[in-house]
């Protein structure tokens, strides 16, 4: 693969300029499918959660007939937020300013004094909460504001196969444990997205203390890896054990559960997941995912337990972004195991964990190093893996552009390419 065919780096001004952020809200967040919630967060009719889609606040609700709606959390009268809390269950959303009432499907149900004040011809149907296009995949609720965007599966391209392998492994499906929580961090959101797209290269340095502490367990052993990406900007990195001595299984789940799952799984998916120590990736532009099974986090957290974490990045300004965290567990796992999985994810990848601290420290130091005049003349380097050898084929066959390198910036180049394309910076 030659660098020539690859996009050039994102200019540093794109990490500093507020006007660029405003463009991103429109071109990237306004045109992409964005993950907003998991179905298990709103199991009952009337359940809702409030989320963000880039710069727009939304309500995600479960409506009659088991439908899921994603709509702008802004009254169509004068724009007041009609829902002010993080989650709950309701039959209607009542605006606190003049009392317009909306259904959980967003329809404008009532207007105080309607007939007398707005006249007989006033048409409520025009004035429901603005709806986003919504699609659900393995319980993941995606939405977009772009009426012309291709449907979700088309937008996912060949990456869909990997989402199946990631979220479809367990016959009973997965569910969110507890809910979602958020943290504000310093650094442009793109730095974080790039990191998850496939940056295996930083592990041995940024997270070296994790290895020193024996947290990674087998992951510290002989590992090989691959990255996969899709022109739509979706990226994934899979690291697995080269060590033959280790049995072929997905680590860190209750035996019966995982055996059932693997038995029922597509053979390629099974090969893909077996012996994998860590999978992390990016569903373009801002959904991050990771699954792994740490070995030790203290005497009360001894032995491999797997976790699956999702993150969504929302820009706050050019120098800060909000990170939303979810933990997913197999619906059929035992309550004890679920609690343990959450304990592990909290200690390894929780907002207050020190593993996380290492990454956040780098993000803020990149922000502090942006510079102005000299910075603008110092583009980032994306050559990792370019002109380097590839290893043997992966032990599984999957679609997408597979790069047989564990440490490479092929995925970062894909992310940057898609981003610049959406921003109209490339022919």
């Amino acid at each position, binding site marked *: 693969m030659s660098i020539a065919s690859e996009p050039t780096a994102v200019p540093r001004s794109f990490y500093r300029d507020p006007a660029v952020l405003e463009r991103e809200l429109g071109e990237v967040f306004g045109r992409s499918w964005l993950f907003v919630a998991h179905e298990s967060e709103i199991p009952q009719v009337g359940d809702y959660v409030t989320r963000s889609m880039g710069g727009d606040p939304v309500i995600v609700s479960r409506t009659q007939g088991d439908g899921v709606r994603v709509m702008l959390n802004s009254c169509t009268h004068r724009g007041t937020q009609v829902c002010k809390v993080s989650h709950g269950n309701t039959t209607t959303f009542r605006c606190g300013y003049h009392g317009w009432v909306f259904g959980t499907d967003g329809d404008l149900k009532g207007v105080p004094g309607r007939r007398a004040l707005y006249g007989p011809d006033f048409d409520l149907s025009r004035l429901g909460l603005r709806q986003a296009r919504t699609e659900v995949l393995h319980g993941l609720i995606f939405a977009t504001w772009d009426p012309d965007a291709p449907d979700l599966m088309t937008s996912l391209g060949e990456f869909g196969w990997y989402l199946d392998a990631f979220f479809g492994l367990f016959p009973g499906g997965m569910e969110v444990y507890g809910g979602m929580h958020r943290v*504000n961090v310093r650094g442009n959101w793109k730095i974080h997205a790039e990191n998850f797209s496939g940056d295996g290269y930083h592990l041995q340095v940024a997270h070296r203390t994790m290895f020193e502490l024996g947290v990674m367990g087998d992951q510290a052993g002989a590992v090989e890896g691959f990255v996969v990406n899709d022109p739509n900007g979706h990226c994934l990195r899979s690291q697995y054990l080269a060590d033959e001595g280790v049995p072929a299984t997905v680590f860190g789940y209750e035996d019966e559960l995982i055996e059932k799952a693997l038995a029922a799984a597509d053979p390629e998916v099974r090969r893909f997941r077996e012996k994998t120590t860590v999978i992390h990736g990016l569903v373009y532009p801002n959904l991050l995912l990771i699954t792994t099974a740490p070995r030790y986090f203290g005497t009360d957290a001894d032995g491999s337990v797997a976790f699956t974490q999702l993150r969504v990045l929302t820009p706050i300004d050019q120098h800060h972004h909000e990170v939303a965290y979810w933990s997913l567990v197999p619906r059929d796992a035992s309550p004890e195991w679920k609690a343990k999985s959450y304990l592990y994810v909290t200690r390894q990848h929780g907002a207050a964990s020190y593993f996380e601290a290492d990454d956040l420290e780098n993000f803020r130091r990149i922000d502090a190093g942006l510079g102005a005049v000299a910075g603008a003349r110092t583009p980032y380097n994306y050559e990792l893996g370019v002109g380097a050898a590839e290893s043997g084929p992966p032990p599984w066959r999957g679609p997408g552009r597979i790069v047989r390198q564990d440490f490479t910036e092929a995925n970062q180049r894909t992310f940057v390419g898609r981003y610049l394309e959406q921003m109209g910076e490339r022919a």
Partner: protein
Amino acid sequence: MRAEIEDFLVHEADLLDSGRYADWLDLLHEDFLYRVPVPLAREDPTQSPYDDVLEFANESKSFLEMRFRRIASDFAWAERPAAMVRHFVSNFRITPEGGDVEAYAVRTNVMVVRARLPEVPVIATAGRHDRIVRQDGVLLLASRVVHLDAEVPTESQLGVIF
């Protein structure tokens, strides 16, 4: 006793602020657990905003030992340079449990200032629910639950032990 417990918690904060982590660990009961539940805005004011399941942190004594071993490493990037941390502890509310082991439920309000030089200091505030027990004559911290005053804290605010 009131003065003894106040001094105990002021001393405990001092150890954290001066980076004497080994001494701080000595103040912890073997079964010590440190929890920071996530606050979430609820419609009903009678519901506690602190979630039963979601937590920013859940740290046992053995896990805290790992944390401090890490800080001593040259590769604890987030600790190089080390942050300056200062606790301001006030509004002591001490309630003896009245069981047969000498134990107290101690509630305090705490403001923690954290500065990663040269960045400007960041302030975080919280209420603390501590359990303090006397074992072999000395007071030990048996558990701490932190009620943070922010739903979406910054990484800097979370980067401390309250």
